[in-house]
């Protein structure tokens, strides 16, 4: 906790009175290098860093409160919460966002001289506005902002692309119209300012590079935040608080007209149903349809997520009922006509189930767009010249899985930029590679999974350094020469990767153990391929949907349990000779020459019975470790729809959820990673875990 030991808790002026100016100055200095600090800390998670950051933001929050600067105080508290709840790696984006906001706010205060004065923060009472128009605005704002951002980033790559410029201009223009129509004056002003900024670029008054491009992107970010704030305010107290920094940003984008009316954020509703003509009339001709209605021409229809879930649930019920009917009717006793109808019903319900799953599929494009921005920011911060090439943005996956992609992707991309790519372009040129580094990000389907690849053309993994480290840590015997893939796998070992020596030399594998474990919990996995000097490729795999799995049905006493097929390596019927019980330990199963721990489901779940003679053992794998699960019988294999338990607080360890069997009863789905961890904990209490295969 040594961010700045000399820092006093409250900024004071010459007479010990809280001084807003000193506060701003000092905290700007304090926070300016924070981006780098956060990124480094996120890449090398050490408890100290987290504490330092917590301390820093806590102090900032306290001081801001003392000075009455609610905006900064709230943001600082938000960062504290993110740090505590999600940790540094998961929350890094939100932390950076908040830090950006605070810096903008402080900087704007420096210019306007009143940032710390809450009187300058404007507010809009949303309850007085039309809820339907607001909802329309929220529904569409994100899309336009994403479009704007994507186009701006494209412009960065190709500054002469007028089509990109026009498209970004149109996006802001549409947003301005929608905001005006909804009565969101501050949003309208900022969108207008951004539009004006782009218009100047279109007229050639400014070039959208460097700071001017950053300014446009800052407007996109601020608008995103405003739209998120609108959504939050609608759920909360209905008051949209607009920080003074927003008007300051608008002022930087578009110098205010003499009256100042544009940037003054009025509380009232500014009627702007018809978008104000952009400053240059000629610009309109260049933009084919700068009209809010343009977005209505899409072929897609917007459906609320709730309604969609209800539809999919109902389809699920129908499929189950259909299965139950077929199970209880004997077709031989039925009139032919009825038999035929039943067949048709079965076919239709299968079709419906397929559609039901289809409906939930969305493309990965938005995630990739976010990554484009991330890589750009990371590259700028680390001073590397990096181009991100994306492919397969159209690849679709279940809505519930999309959010789960973000974390591993951020992790791998940050790794690639910070450690994979050579810091010195000369090194690259010397190695015969272009000075500008390329990171590839691709998505595609393979089997029932979506595969994502992050590939860089950096220096690759240093095989010798890893091997050396592993031997010195006693993970491998001296002189061992394992195959490449086994060496690469070593960087997934907990603790191994964070060792500074390897990080410095090979520069890879930071915190990857955590990423891989999270992926396995989602029934996915990660692998790695590397070529020294040419680069490194990480591939990770997630199921297309979390709603349906292939499962093996197990009988345990009178009870039925499901094991996700993906976790199962082999199914064996062990003979007594296959099971070993050391005199002081738990039972072990011979598995391909190794001994693995056994978990008898009868014992674990308190089911009576369990004759060893006719039992079946499933060798399951997770977290780099194998365990044999013993049950009475293997009843079959089927696709099952995973249902969360309703009305439970917390859930039960070892049980991932339930599914409905064709006879209408509920069967429980085993949570393999949790079971494996519990076995491992048991073994570690006893003695060392026997080495896996």
């Amino acid at each position, binding site marked *: 906790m040594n961010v700045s030991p000399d820092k006093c808790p409250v900024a004071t002026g010459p007479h010990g009175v809280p001084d807003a100016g000193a506060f701003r100055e000092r905290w700007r200095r304090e926070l300016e290098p924070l981006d780098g600090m956060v990124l480094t800390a996120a890449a090398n998670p050490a408890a100290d860093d987290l504490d330092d950051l917590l301390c820093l933001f806590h102090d900032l929050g306290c001081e801001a409160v003392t000075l009455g600067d609610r905006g900064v105080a709230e943001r600082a508290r938000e960062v504290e919460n993110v740090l505590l709840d999600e940790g540094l790696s998961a929350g890094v984006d939100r932390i950076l966002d908040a830090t950006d906001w605070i810096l903008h706010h402080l900087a704007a205060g420096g210019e306007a001289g009143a940032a710390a004065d809450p009187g300058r923060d404007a507010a809009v009472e949303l309850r007085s506005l039309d809820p339907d128009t607001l909802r329309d605005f929220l529904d569409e704002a994100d899309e336009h902002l994403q479009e704007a951002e994507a186009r701006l980033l494209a412009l960065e790559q190709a500054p002469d692309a007028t089509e990109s410029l026009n498209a970004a201009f149109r996006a802001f223009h549409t947003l301005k119209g929608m905001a005006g129509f909804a009565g969101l004056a501050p949003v309208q002003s900022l969108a207008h300012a951004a539009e004006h900024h782009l218009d100047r670029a279109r007229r050639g008054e400014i070039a959208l590079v460097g700071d001017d491009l950053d300014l446009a992107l800052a407007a996109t970010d601020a608008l995103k935040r405003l739209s998120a704030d609108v959504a939050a305010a609608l759920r909360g107290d209905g008051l949209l608080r607009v920080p003074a920094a927003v008007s300051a940003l608008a002022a930087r984008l578009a110098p205010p007209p003499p009256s100042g009316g544009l940037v003054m954020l009025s509380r009232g509703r500014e009627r702007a149903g018809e978008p104000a003509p952009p400053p240059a009339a000629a610009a309109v001709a260049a933009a084919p349809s700068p009209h809010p209605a343009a977005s209505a021409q899409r072929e897609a229809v917007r459906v609320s997520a709730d309604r969609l879930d209800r539809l999919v*649930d*109902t389809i*699920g*019920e129908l499929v*189950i009922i259909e299965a139950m009917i077929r199970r209880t009717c004997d077709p031989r006793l039925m009139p032919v006509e009825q038999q035929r109808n039943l067949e048709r019903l079965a076919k239709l319900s299968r079709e419906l189930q397929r559609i039901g799953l289809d409906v939930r599929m969305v493309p990965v494009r938005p995630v990739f767009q976010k990554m484009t921005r991330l890589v750009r920011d990371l590259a700028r911060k680390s001073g590397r010249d990096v181009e991100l090439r994306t492919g397969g943005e159209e690849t679709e996956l279940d809505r519930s899985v999309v959010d789960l992609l973000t974390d591993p992707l951020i992790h791998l991309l940050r790794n690639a930029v910070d450690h994979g790519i050579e810091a010195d372009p000369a090194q690259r040129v010397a190695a015969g590679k272009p000075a500008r580094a390329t990171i590839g990000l691709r998505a595609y389907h393979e089997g029932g999974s979506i595969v994502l690849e992050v590939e860089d053309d950096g220096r690759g993994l240093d095989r010798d350094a890893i091997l050396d480290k592993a031997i010195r840590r006693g993970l491998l015997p001296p002189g061992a020469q394992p195959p490449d893939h086994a060496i690469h796998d070593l960087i997934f070992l907990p603790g191994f990767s964070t060792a500074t020596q390897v990080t410095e030399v090979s520069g890879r594998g930071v915190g990857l153990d955590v990423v891989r474990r999270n992926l396995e919990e989602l029934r996915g996995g990660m692998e790695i391929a590397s070529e020294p000097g040419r680069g490194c490729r990480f591939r990770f795999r997630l199921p297309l949907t979390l709603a349906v799995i292939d499962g093996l049905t197990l009988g345990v006493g009178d*009870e039925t349990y499901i094991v996700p097929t993906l976790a199962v390596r082999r199914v064996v019927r062990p003979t007594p000779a296959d099971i070993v019980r050391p005199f002081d330990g738990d039972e072990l199963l011979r598995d391909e020459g190794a001994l693995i721990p056994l978990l008898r489901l009868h014992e*674990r*779940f*308190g*089911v009576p019975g369990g004759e060893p003679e006719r039992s079946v053992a499933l060798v399951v794998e997770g977290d780099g470790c194998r365990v044999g699960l013993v049950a009475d019988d293997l009843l079959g294999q089927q696709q099952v729809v995973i*249902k*969360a*338990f*309703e*009305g*439970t*607080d917390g859930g*039960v*360890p*070892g*049980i991932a*959820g*339930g*599914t*409905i069997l064709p006879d*209408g*009863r*509920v*069967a*429980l789905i085993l949570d393999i990673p949790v079971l494996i961890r519990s076995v491992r904990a048991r073994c570690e209490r006893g003695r060392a875990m026997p080495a896996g295969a």
Partner: protein
Amino acid sequence: METTTRNPVTAAPGSYLGFRLGAETYGLDIGVVQEISGMLPVTRVPGAPDHVRGVVNLRGRVVQVVDLRRLFGMEAATETRRTSLVVCRIEDGEQTAVAAAVVDDVTEVLNIDAAAIAPHSGGGAGAAVAGLAQLGGAVIILLDAARVFFGDEPGGAA
């Protein structure tokens, strides 16, 4: 009124769904009752609290079932045709949860006015009791649904 400090949930007057467990009549606020269903096959959930009998398939949803007899320390009853599930929908902050309780028999909807409600000195499993009501000479035990299903003080409030 020192009882209110020990058991801050106090039954409000209004309509209650009456049901029986053994000889006693109980009431649950009709506002949280979503439906009443016949008994369904229950799947035991290993590791769940003792008063949770398991989960059932309620038209495609997997819903937790609380055994009120176990919750109140009564002995188990044999299932009859009248054994029912009272399915409740509970708003808990932003979330709504659906859960069911096994009861011996559902009787009728009871209208209980404020004067009939006596405070209850809750403790133990009684924490789920929100009050007692006098109705035509009988005593109705009024339950707090949120505490029955998500008992913040399982096994004892003290």
